[in-house]
């Protein structure tokens, strides 16, 4: 059996101090985080009036309003938050170009629609023909629906491409699928 090396009490204490300091030292501020809380950095607070949201978007120079339809206990919505809406690249792009609001397809709050008429949130979702969650619907500054994306995107990059498809006006020339095919060539 090989002998066990020993350290003097003073050097061992020094080593232990270094270990404890290292263990509790704050993480170095090197790389910026790639994810953030989507509730704070992707979705914006909704006060229940979509016309006011359009007005706000217009004043802030944004391209429109994005409604993300979700439902409680929807595992796909959970994945959307975890792998897409939490990504800084998604948050930065969408916050720059759109007002992003979350809608509950079963919500019973009364909201004012783009036409100013009051309606229950669930009824608004039904009239908007939302039949799956998550569904992302883009509205231009006049309230008109200009693009829709049902279900989960493949990844954050595809969701940013979707935002670009709308913000740069490519939706006027064809579908998102066609836009992606052209971009891939």
């Amino acid at each position, binding site marked *: 059996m090989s002998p066990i090396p020993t350290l003097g009490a003073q050097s061992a204490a020094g080593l232990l101090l270094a270990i404890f300091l290292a263990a509790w030292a704050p993480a170095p501020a090197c790389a910026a985080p790639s994810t953030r809380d989507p509730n704070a950095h992707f979705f914006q607070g909704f006060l229940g009036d979509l016309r006011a949201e359009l007005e706000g978007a217009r004043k802030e120079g944004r391209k429109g309003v994005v409604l993300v339809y979700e439902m409680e206990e929807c*595992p796909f919505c959970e*994945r959307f938050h975890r792998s897409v809406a939490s990504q800084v690249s998604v948050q930065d792009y969408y916050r720059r170009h759109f007002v992003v609001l979350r809608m509950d397809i079963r919500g019973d709050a009364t909201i004012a629609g783009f036409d100013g008429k009051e309606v229950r949130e669930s009824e608004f979702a039904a009239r908007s023909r939302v039949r799956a969650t998550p569904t992302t619907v883009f509205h231009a500054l006049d309230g008109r629906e200009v693009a829709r994306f049902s279900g989960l995107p493949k990844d954050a990059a595809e969701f940013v491409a979707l935002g670009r498809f709308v913000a740069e006006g490519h939706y006027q020339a064809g579908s998102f699928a066609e836009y992606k095919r052209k971009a891939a060539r």
Partner: protein
Amino acid sequence: MISFRLVILLVAMAQGAALAADPQPLSLARAVAAAGAAAGPARAPAARVEATRHFYDALVADREYAAANEQVAVTYVAFDRARAKAGAAAATDIAVKDLEVHYARALERRQGVLARQRLSRHALAGTMGAAAMPGELEEPPAPPASGTIRDFDDLVKAMAGRAAPERAAADVARDRAELLRATLDIERLRRAVIPRAEREAELADMKLEKARDDHERGLPSALGAAMAGTAEAGWRRLQAQGELAVALARREALAGPTHP
């Protein structure tokens, strides 16, 4: 005098306490470092391999749990719709019962994965010498899916250069067999398993695209099942990457880190 072994134990305890109290997701690098420190110099290489294995087991279980949860939602919606449509006859309708069985199986699977999540975390904590099970895990970058397959004799020479000269011939032969196994595993994973998992993920993405298109045209679609399919393909790809990471760690433990 404080023994070196005691210092190693205190290092492991300090690191374990820091990990348990840390709200940051645990990275593979930190898990491996903690396992090496907890095991001590002689057992550190094997402990690092074990930590890699348990880390990926836990991470894959997390991702599989999310996929299993999506399957529960998909099977429940199908069952619930059929039950509502059948009305009073639902209890004796074979098609409805069939969908109920699918739902029950999805629940059973999710429960099994939940157990694996806990067991793999328990094993990981044990390897790291941590008192508490780790919480969230950070997904590491995918291990290199390609690399030069080094001549096996070169690896054996590298291994011999690292081994203690008084090592028994039987131990050397066992290490050599393990090195060969790790090398062949790396080759199999890179040439067949990872590409298969990648193609499956691509297929799942294509099916999702098709289902989305059908859904938006108002045609019958299986959007939920297609979304769940991408989650299944995702955890299977991660599992393949984990197997490769473990095989690379096994080879590194035997022959050193200089071989791509």
